[in-house]
């Protein structure tokens, strides 16, 4: 048997081999010759690999395959591109404006109510089985000193935080409310090290739990919840306390810490990137300092909030596809002086790229001036005061209320401009604008130089059937609420 070229093997083997390639290599293979191009183009399985990648998603856990999966993906893409939801459901909740704590992760909306009751809404079930989608139960949890919780349903994990002295974390399963079997010490105590608790938030990324306290002097704790120990406690002990600081885990071994800067007089602000070892107590290592646009003398940042979607350690059960953790947009909401707000958007992969460089080359802390990273890799847009709600981002999309409460607006940074069909004519109900050109942010007398940024995005505005002033978002839906007293206990779920 004489074979001289890979093309002499049967085409079905070729496509079988291709199915094991990563999307990028697969795309390259399609430009090798006609046979390979046709093999890739004519196989729904291979097209699915490519299109899923283009949407920044990974396969989920449901059984859709080949052409069906591809069709479902296209349907979903069309729906989000035009903000055309496929179903609308209204569900009773306790007003978010009053409730103690709530979470929206992996298709679950969870709320700790005023009493001991715990509300769980399976948002996916709302569409098919609305009777059983909503469940309230009393887990008999300890309520004294209970402050907040965080969840990762893909690990069946709920972590509750108690501010007694000493403070403690309680790691349980969401399904049965038992101590979590993967936690060596499901309950472990630690010293808060601060008197004023103020505002704080909890984040879970895989085996790490972080609690960040933003009231100066800010501090944060990192824990490995499985091993059951505190990795580090970082306190701001500078002579000049940070006028603001914000923290966000980038991965289970890295985080960003944004603040005004360590040098007196340097108030332009910076984003520090740190790595740490999650497997033993240790101190984080600063690997990069990204400077924000230089500001004029006497101008300073008075507040900053970092927002990004939640992390899931595993694929979401029952979904045909899951947004990859890598495809995330970070929004830095920055306030210069008083009331001069702006939003800085940057992709996770840009921030985390410094972590990769560090792991590969053990580079020391790199100071990156704004001009070297900002204009090309970010988009800075005018902003407005932010509400306390942290769930306005999922993946590469951001949902915001409009001044006209009948509308909702979505920013999508996951688009690929080269692959976008021409934007349709605006109507009274819907308008979409693709922004690929650089734009200049104008804030009176704030910046030393003109701040021009160019990260591409799509901005969409759609008319809704009711008025809302608060939106949450996850992978497949927008959740809408109104703070008006008579309607704040209702949540409308638009599923795409």
């Amino acid at each position, binding site marked *: 048997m004489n074979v001289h070229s890979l093309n002499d*093997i049967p085409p079905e083997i070729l496509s079988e081999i291709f199915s094991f390639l*990563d999307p990028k*290599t697969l795309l390259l293979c399609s430009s090798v010759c006609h046979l390979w191009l046709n093999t890739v183009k004519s196989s729904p399985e291979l097209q699915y690999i490519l299109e899923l990648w283009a949407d920044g998603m*990974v396969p989920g856990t449901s059984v859709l395959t080949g052409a069906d999966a591809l069709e479902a993906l296209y349907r979903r893409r069309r729906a989000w591109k035009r903000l055309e939801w496929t179903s609308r459901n209204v569900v009773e909740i306790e007003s978010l404006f009053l409730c103690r704590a709530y979470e929206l992760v992996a298709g679950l909306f969870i709320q700790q109510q005023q009493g001991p009751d715990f509300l769980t809404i399976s948002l996916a079930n709302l569409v098919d089985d609305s009777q059983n989608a909503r469940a309230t139960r009393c887990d008999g949890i300890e309520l004294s000193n209970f402050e907040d919780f965080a969840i990762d349903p893909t690990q069946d994990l709920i972590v509750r935080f108690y501010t007694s002295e000493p403070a403690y974390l309680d790691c349980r399963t969401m399904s049965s409310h038992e101590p979590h079997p993967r936690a060596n010490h499901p309950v472990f105590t630690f010293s808060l090290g601060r008197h004023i608790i103020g505002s704080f938030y909890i984040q879970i990324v895989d085996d790490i739990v972080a609690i960040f306290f933003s009231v100066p002097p800010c501090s944060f704790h990192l824990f490995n919840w499985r091993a059951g120990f505190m990795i580090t406690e970082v306190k701001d002990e500078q002579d000049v306390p940070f006028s603001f600081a914000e923290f966000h885990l980038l991965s*289970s071994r890295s985080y960003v810490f944004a603040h005004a800067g360590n040098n007196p007089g340097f108030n332009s602000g910076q984003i520090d990137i740190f790595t740490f070892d999650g497997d033993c107590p240790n101190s984080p290592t600063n690997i990069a300092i990204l400077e924000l646009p230089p500001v004029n003398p006497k101008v300073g940042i008075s507040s900053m909030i970092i927002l990004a979607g939640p*992390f899931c*350690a595993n694929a979401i059960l029952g979904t045909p596809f899951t947004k990859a*953790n890598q495809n995330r947009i970070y929004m830095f909401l920055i306030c210069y002086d008083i009331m001069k707000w702006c939003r800085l958007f940057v992709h996770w992969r840009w921030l985390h790229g410094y972590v*990769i460089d560090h792991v590969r080359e053990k580079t020391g802390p790199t100071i990156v001036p704004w001009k070297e990273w900002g204009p090309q890799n970010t988009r800075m847009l005018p902003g407005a005061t932010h509400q306390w709600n942290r769930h306005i981002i999922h993946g590469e999309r951001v949902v915001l209320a409009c001044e006209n409460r009948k509308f909702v607006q979505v920013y999508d940074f996951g688009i690929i401009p080269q692959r976008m069909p021409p934007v349709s004519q605006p109507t009274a109900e819907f308008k979409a604008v693709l922004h690929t050109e650089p734009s200049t942010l104008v804030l009176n007398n704030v910046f030393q130089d003109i701040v021009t940024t160019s990260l591409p995005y799509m901005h969409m505005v759609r008319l809704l059937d009711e008025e809302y002033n608060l939106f949450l978002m996850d992978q497949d839906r927008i959740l809408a609420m109104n703070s008006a007293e008579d309607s704040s206990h209702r949540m409308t779920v638009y599923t795409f």
Partner: protein
Amino acid sequence: MVLLVTSDNEQFQTEKDIVERSVLIKNMLEDVGESDQPIPLPNVSSSVLKKVTQPSTGPTEIDVRGRYLSTASTTVESPSRPPILEQSQDETRKRTTDISEWDQKFITVDQEMLFEIILAANYLDIKSLLCRRWLQDGSQHDQGARPPEEIRKLFNIVNDFTPEEEAQIKKENEWAEDR
């Protein structure tokens, strides 16, 4: 033990659990039942069979494909986009290296042998052998998949695109470069 006879009439005594990785032979054994009769493999030469049945330290199909299908955290990404959960990433990287080394060894056969192995694997229905990451092999080292010219050279493939077609495809695929 199972007795296999190759196209060039060589006989092989092979462990049952190794030959049963071949769906073809597994089915044959089930059809025949307990028997000492040799199993003829008219489409497989002895040199290829040696390769195909050598005790594999390489990954099974589940391993390789599983990395793509499993989770958001350990999905196969091009090396420039490693997974987000760095602990899992370490595991992935370790496994990736294992595969790569195994592939490396496996791939150090000449082209003819390589294709014969692919065909034999197809004939014998051994999925795990079909899924070697030939085309990605180089990408482990130079942080990028092989460019099309190199793939063509590696596999003796003639570029049958016109320059216009090639330019068109390049343009269509441009978006992927920085992802």
